[in-house]
């Protein structure tokens, strides 16, 4: 829709100095008052012009993410995007989850890191197909990388896809990958005020896993306070308190996965 007048056309509109604006493809043009530039100018300089664009800057990524989402839906693949700061235990959580559920839920994994095959090597030991994306200097995965990765992984129908994003609590928040659920992992060795410090990530998540709860006796981490902070940012969040290492609390997480991955 044209933002200048509200007439219905989704195509890009063009507006030149001293001219009517017109829409491509909708076969009409009409006048508007001159737009406000906040500066004076000479109308004889007709080659200086402003092109109205009105496009989402992340539009290309969002479009590709929707394409991924459609593909996952058609194949009944339940896709999860795991995000967190480095060292929260995402890979251990995945190793344990896959080792326990791989017979019940056929799975595949996409690993994202700047460098190394280390995480993919760990996941491969569970016998689950895995692909490593090394982003080089990149700080997040994007929808196009996921598209390329699942093409190579050849996903099974009726399965789950776990995407472990680059360890970074800032950048991945802005990039939709086409996942069904975004899961933010926080470990108790971090501060319980992380949701307040990195609200964009908690705002963009559906699930919050609090990991390493076996270490609670040794650290100053108030689980209830952390949950309260996270809910202040995003009151839709659902929580799991687990220790991927000892297995404590993991049963609830497995049950949630079995319920949502309808395989």
């Amino acid at each position, binding site marked *: 829709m044209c933002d200048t007048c509200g007439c219905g056309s989704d195509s*890009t509109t*063009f*507006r030149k100095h001293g001219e009517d604006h017109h829409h491509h493809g909708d076969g009409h043009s009409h006048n508007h008052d001159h737009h406000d530039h906040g500066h004076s100018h000479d109308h004889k300089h007709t*080659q*200086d*012009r*402003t*092109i*109205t*664009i*009105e*496009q*989402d*800057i*992340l*539009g*290309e*990524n969002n479009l590709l993410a929707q394409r991924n989402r459609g593909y996952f839906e058609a194949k009944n693949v339940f896709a999860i995007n795991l995000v967190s700061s480095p060292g929260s235990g995402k890979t251990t959580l995945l190793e344990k989850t896959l080792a326990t559920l791989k017979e019940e839920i056929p799975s595949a994994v996409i690993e994202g890191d700047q460098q190394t095959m280390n995480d993919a090597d760990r996941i491969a030991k569970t016998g689950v197909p895995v692909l490593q994306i090394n982003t080089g200097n*990149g*700080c*997040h995965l*994007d929808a196009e990388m996921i598209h390329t990765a699942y093409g190579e992984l050849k996903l099974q129908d009726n399965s789950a896809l776990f995407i472990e994003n680059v360890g970074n609590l*800032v*950048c991945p*928040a*802005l*990039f939709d990958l086409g996942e069904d659920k975004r899961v933010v992992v926080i470990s108790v060795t971090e501060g319980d005020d992380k949701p*307040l410090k990195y*609200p*964009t990530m*908690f*705002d963009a998540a559906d699930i919050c896993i609090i990991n390493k709860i076996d270490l609670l006796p040794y650290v100053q981490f108030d689980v209830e306070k952390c949950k309260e*902070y996270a*809910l*202040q*940012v*995003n*009151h839709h969040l659902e929580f799991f308190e687990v220790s991927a290492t000892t297995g404590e609390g993991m049963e609830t997480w497995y049950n949630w996965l079995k319920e949502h991955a309808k395989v």
Partner: protein
Amino acid sequence: MHEMSIAMSIISIACKEAEKDGASSISNIELDVGKLSGVMIDSLNFCYESVCKGTLAENSTLSINEVPARASCKKCNHTFEIDSFMALCPQCESYEIDILQGRELKLKAVSVN
């Protein structure tokens, strides 16, 4: 620094549109950036300068309109301006708010010649 990817997307969209219009260069790019968009304007400006080199947008300026954030309270339906995701409803003090505006990240217009 995701601002680099964002700056690259901006230049890619702007150059595509400018080429379509037969423009020889871009003098200014106008953006709407919401207060809760997750983008740091200083970083974006920094990345923009390096990304536009060697493109139609070389030496162009970036005009950023900061879009204020607004929310509505799920409990009492009050709508109000907010500074962060952790805002309280000023009327009933509930944290259950829906963000209405402030996540924008939009390329508004490109000035060319």
